[in-house]
């Protein structure tokens, strides 16, 4: 056997030890494979199989398998029946119409044999393709430890909003807490003002306003300052009347360096 294909030819008159015969017979991948072997062995043209002869030889092998008590797949017997039928049809004079159609009784078998042979060959071709584990080996160098990162998960905005909805709904169950219509620009400005003052020290009140933002911007800043003062985050400092007003974080304890 070479690459799984039966390579032996079985001379008709040669005695073959039953063991070897068994191995030989088992190499067939089914009735089509056996038929192909019989045809190829005699260098016959697959398009013009001498059906009587081939049928006879095929039956000999099937008998042999029987005798050796090889487990004979049903497909072998089915093929035997089909061969017998083709053979009988070949012997009958064919009606004119059938002949015009070119309906050779062997046509279907020939087609199947050819089709099978293509894939038998394709399988052999596949087997000789260079492949991993046999012809090539994957390389895999280790990476020094400690470099592999863990990426933070993605968050969708709607997840954030539904989380908020849930917590607000829950909060209402526990408290009579009332959430007013929020102006987020105000909250954002509060954070921005705090950021400005983060270094500590004083800032002139007037410096916190950006006239280029126009009236609405100035109002928002003003409201943010009021809010921050009210919640004890900021304080206003004026050294004397009419002196510039300064703003600072309450208590000059180190704000944040986080």
């Amino acid at each position: 056997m070479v690459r799984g294909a039966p390579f032996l030819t079985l001379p008709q008159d040669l005695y073959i030890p039953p063991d070897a015969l068994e191995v030989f017979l088992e190499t067939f991948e089914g009735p089509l494979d056996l038929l192909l072997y019989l045809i190829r062995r005699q260098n016959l043209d697959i398009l013009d199989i001498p059906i009587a002869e081939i049928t006879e030889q095929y039956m000999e092998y099937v008998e042999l398998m029987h005798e050796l008590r090889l487990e004979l797949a049903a497909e072998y017997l089915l093929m035997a029946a089909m061969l017998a039928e083709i053979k009988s049809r070949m012997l009958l004079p064919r009606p004119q119409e059938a002949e015009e159609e070119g309906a050779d009784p062997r046509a279907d078998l020939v087609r199947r044999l050819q089709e099978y042979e293509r894939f038998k060959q394709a399988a052999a071709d596949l087997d000789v393709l260079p492949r991993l584990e046999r012809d090539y080996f994957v390389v895999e160098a280790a990476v020094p430890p400690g470099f592999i990162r863990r990426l933070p998960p993605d968050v969708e905005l709607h997840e954030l909003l539904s989380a908020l909805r849930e917590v607000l709904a829950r909060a209402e169950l526990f408290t009579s807490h009332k959430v007013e219509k929020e102006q987020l620009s105000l909250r954002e400005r509060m954070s921005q003002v705090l950021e400005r003052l983060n270094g500590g020290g004083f800032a002139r009140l007037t410096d916190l306003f950006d006239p280029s933002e126009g009236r609405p911007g100035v109002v928002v800043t003003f409201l943010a300052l009021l809010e921050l003062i009210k919640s004890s985050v900021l304080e206003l400092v004026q050294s004397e009347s009419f002196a510039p007003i300064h703003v600072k974080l309450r208590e000059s304890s180190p704000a944040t360096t986080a």
Partner: protein
Amino acid sequence: MTDQPLKAIVEGALIAAGGPLTLDRLLELFGEDERPERAAILDCIRALSADYEGRGIEIAEVAGGYRVQVRASVAPWVARLWDEKAPRYSRALLETLALIAYRQPITRGEIEDIRGVAVSTNIIKTLTEREWVRVVGHRDVPGRPALYATTRRFLDYFGLRSLNELPPLSEIRDPESYFLSTNVAPTSEPTENTP
């Protein structure tokens, strides 16, 4: 750009990956601010490929991208690192695999029709476990049989970039035309060989 030579990074990645890497995957190794051009990565791969000439490794382009592999010429020695021999596959398995590769998507019944014998469940199991083959759908006929197709891993394993690189199937000669041309006179028993 990074402070490390691009080629060294590409080499390290290809050798560590343990399988093929696409250009996209290689590009993803770089932060947005340092990401090189595709062409630059490709240049590195080409340069590495030239560097590896005559050495123990080589770069192969397969369906899954670029892969560093032990060169076939030194593989016989390297293979001795492992106790197990490379797996061998039966003809039945290879024929089934070939049918799926060339005729995909295909049902088990269709494979059996062509091979003329039943396909054992074990074969389908092995092919599926190796991730060479997978179910890609079901044919809309009674029983809704599974349709099998090959995977990228199959291509990678056999060193192919695409199904187009499979060896071509042999030609089929049309029996119809043969019979039509030779059957001018009714043949009694076609024992004699016709040209």
